[in-house]
């Protein structure tokens, strides 16, 4: 299957080139749109191809032909291919939505010319973080997507966006520095930043040092994934951005952090020494997050708090450290990306139809736009976990995994996640009652919602439903991904076939380096 290895870099390379092209075409908005849509469609096609192909085994590309531990490698295994597929589907839908919004609104409210290149760079950064087989390259991927997200979050530079953006930027930079410190210390301890080689070398170093490295990495990723108590920045900064931007941030950026935690916990630190701590963090994230959501009046902030809360479910699955836990966690990530993005897109439509996002000012939308009511109701119930939707399936998977673990702490988490699920239902039903059923404080004129915006939002809701219909095969797929994660050997063997070096062409230099006394480094 290695003849398809050229597909692996596509999700990173295509959007980056398209971003340059889109920037050059800033005077030609129509061409820009064609470039962006084409690029993200290609990425989606490449991701689906990878999803199918890597089911037979991971695909590895040594970038530039340099063999793995020296050069940078891109690895597509089941986990990263699944993440890529979901994220590229979501980015494409959000792009189409924002195109329609750009058509409807004047250019002043959303400067389209900078939006497209930045959005493509964001997509490339997310893909790079998912595909990278090298810790430092993950850092670079994070920085790419963060730099793009800074620009998207402060589009237009209004007072409120600058205020919220400041906090977001400073927190993001702080987590990047923490990540950088972790990388430096890992390099000092192991002499490599290649994930596969680290997986081989980390067990050999002092357990105390290993624990420090693990804590540092988790700390850096927990800020990005918005795990309590490092989640305070999220509900503050996300809601002020334009609706499509909030939607894609909510769907993807925190999940990149969750992905990084899954990858490092399985591959680098399989002994699970922080599992109990993660359990407590998961519980606190779920409960504190959802209690925050209950208190909110602004529907965008309410959804941001549910986002934080549901990160807790994924951390719960991660903290279980069993095949069942990973399986449910990965399925939950896929479910949550689609449902959360769909909800934020629908809230963008609610804002158009109702003229506000404050629940006190909204009302009567069910009568005004019944389509919108359905579009909100389905993902809302999905998020709360009403059977038979995918949110229910993911939660059942997590609960089963928790019960199978059987420790008192796992049972506490099981109870906590059920309570959180009920509170989510409460918060969302409250939002539903206020926005769709209560008598509107001010009568609104009937609005026509542009099909270009309803369509992508509906498509994402449909993707969420597909996750339910295709739950059997998908759950089996995440199960196989989880087994491969626990075994670790498929990943390591694919990157370093002989246990030493990748398949690149730098073999001649190896001899030179090995003859020297170059201790501690990887030559």
């Amino acid at each position, binding site marked *: 299957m290695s003849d398809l290895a050229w597909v692996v870099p596509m999700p990173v390379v295509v959007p980056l080139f398209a971003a340059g092209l889109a920037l050059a075409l800033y005077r030609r908005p129509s061409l820009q749109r064609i470039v962006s849509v084409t690029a993200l469609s290609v990425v989606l096609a490449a991701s689906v191809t990878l999803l199918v192909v890597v089911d037979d085994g991971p695909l590895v590309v040594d970038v530039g032909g340099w063999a793995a531990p020296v050069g940078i490698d891109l690895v597509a295994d089941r986990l990263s291919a699944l993440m890529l597929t979901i994220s590229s589907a979501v980015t494409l839908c959000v792009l189409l939505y924002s195109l329609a919004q750009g058509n409807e609104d004047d250019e002043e409210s959303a400067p389209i010319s900078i939006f497209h290149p930045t959005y493509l760079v964001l997509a490339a950064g997310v893909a790079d973080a998912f595909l990278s087989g090298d810790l430092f390259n993950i850092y*670079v991927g994070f920085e790419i997507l963060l730099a793009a997200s800074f620009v998207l979050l402060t589009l237009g*530079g209004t007072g409120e966006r600058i205020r919220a953006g400041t906090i977001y930027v400073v927190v993001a*930079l702080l987590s990047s520095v923490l990540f950088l410190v972790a990388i430096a*210390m890992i390099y000092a301890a192991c002499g490599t930043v290649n994930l596969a080689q680290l997986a081989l070398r980390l067990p050999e170093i002092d357990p105390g040092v290993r624990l420090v490295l693990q804590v540092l990495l988790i700390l850096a990723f927990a800020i990005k994934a918005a795990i309590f108590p490092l989640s305070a920045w999220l509900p503050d900064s996300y809601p002020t951005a334009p609706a499509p931007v909030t939607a894609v941030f909510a769907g993807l950026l925190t999940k990149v952090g969750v992905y990084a935690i899954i990858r490092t916990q399985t591959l680098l630190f399989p002994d699970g020494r922080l599992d109990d701590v993660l359990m407590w963090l998961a519980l606190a994230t779920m409960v504190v997050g959802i209690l925050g959501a209950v208190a909110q009046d602004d529907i965008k902030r309410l959804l941001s708090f549910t986002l934080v809360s549901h990160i807790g479910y994924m951390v719960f699955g991660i903290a279980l450290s069993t095949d069942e836990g990973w399986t449910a966690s990965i399925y939950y990530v896929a479910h949550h990306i689609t449902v959360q993005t769909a909800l934020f897109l629908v809230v963008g439509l609610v804002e158009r139809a109702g003229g506000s996002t404050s629940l*006190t000012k909204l009302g009567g939308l069910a009568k005004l736009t019944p389509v919108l009511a359905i579009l909100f109701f389905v993902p809302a119930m999905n998020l709360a976990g009403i059977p038979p939707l995918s949110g229910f399936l993911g939660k059942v998977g997590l609960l089963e995994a928790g019960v199978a673990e059987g420790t008192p702490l796992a049972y506490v988490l099981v109870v906590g996640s059920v309570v959180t699920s009920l509170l989510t239902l409460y918060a969302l039903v409250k939002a539903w009652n206020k926005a769709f059923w209560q008598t509107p404080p001010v009568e609104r004129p009937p609005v026509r919602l542009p099909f270009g915006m309803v369509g992508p939002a509906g498509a994402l809701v449909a993707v969420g439903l597909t996750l339910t219909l295709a739950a059997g095969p998908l759950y089996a797929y995440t199960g196989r991904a989880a087994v491969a994660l626990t075994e670790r050997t498929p990943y390591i063997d694919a990157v370093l076939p002989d246990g030493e070096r990748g398949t690149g062409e730098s073999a001649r230099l190896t001899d030179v380096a090995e003859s*020297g006394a170059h201790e501690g*480094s990887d030559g």
Partner: protein
Amino acid sequence: MSPNIVLVVTIAVLFTVGVYLLLERSLSRVLIGVILVGNGANLLFLVAGGAAGGPPIVGVTDDGEMSDPLPQAMVLTAIVITLGMTAFLLAMAYRSWQLHRHDEVQDDVEDRRIARLAAIDELAVSDSDEEGPTKTLDEEAAETRDETDEGHPAAEVTR
């Protein structure tokens, strides 16, 4: 190999001062804090790279005396990234000053509203038709000041 003590002390000082500045209200000071902490991390890479040596070029330096090029490559990448981020933060601080005549990092405005409602024991979402907050978030962000009292409130400044 024992690391260079000068480097280690410098890193410690950079991190201490940087963290202190990060906790300030003014974005310019936060920015300097970010730069200092970032440079501390960069120096940490130099320590991670092991003892200093000759340029790592085959044929120029003996294999045993080469310095490790990989951390230096990583530091270069990190420096470039920090440069870009610094430029963006500077632009944000300037924009904030343009809008409000200060570059204060403010607390969450919406949080403040909810806290106010809680203080007067009011439901966050009331069912009556009474008026909600009359100001938009943008206006409130412009008027709110947290701890610093340097500069002038935005209202007094002619735009």
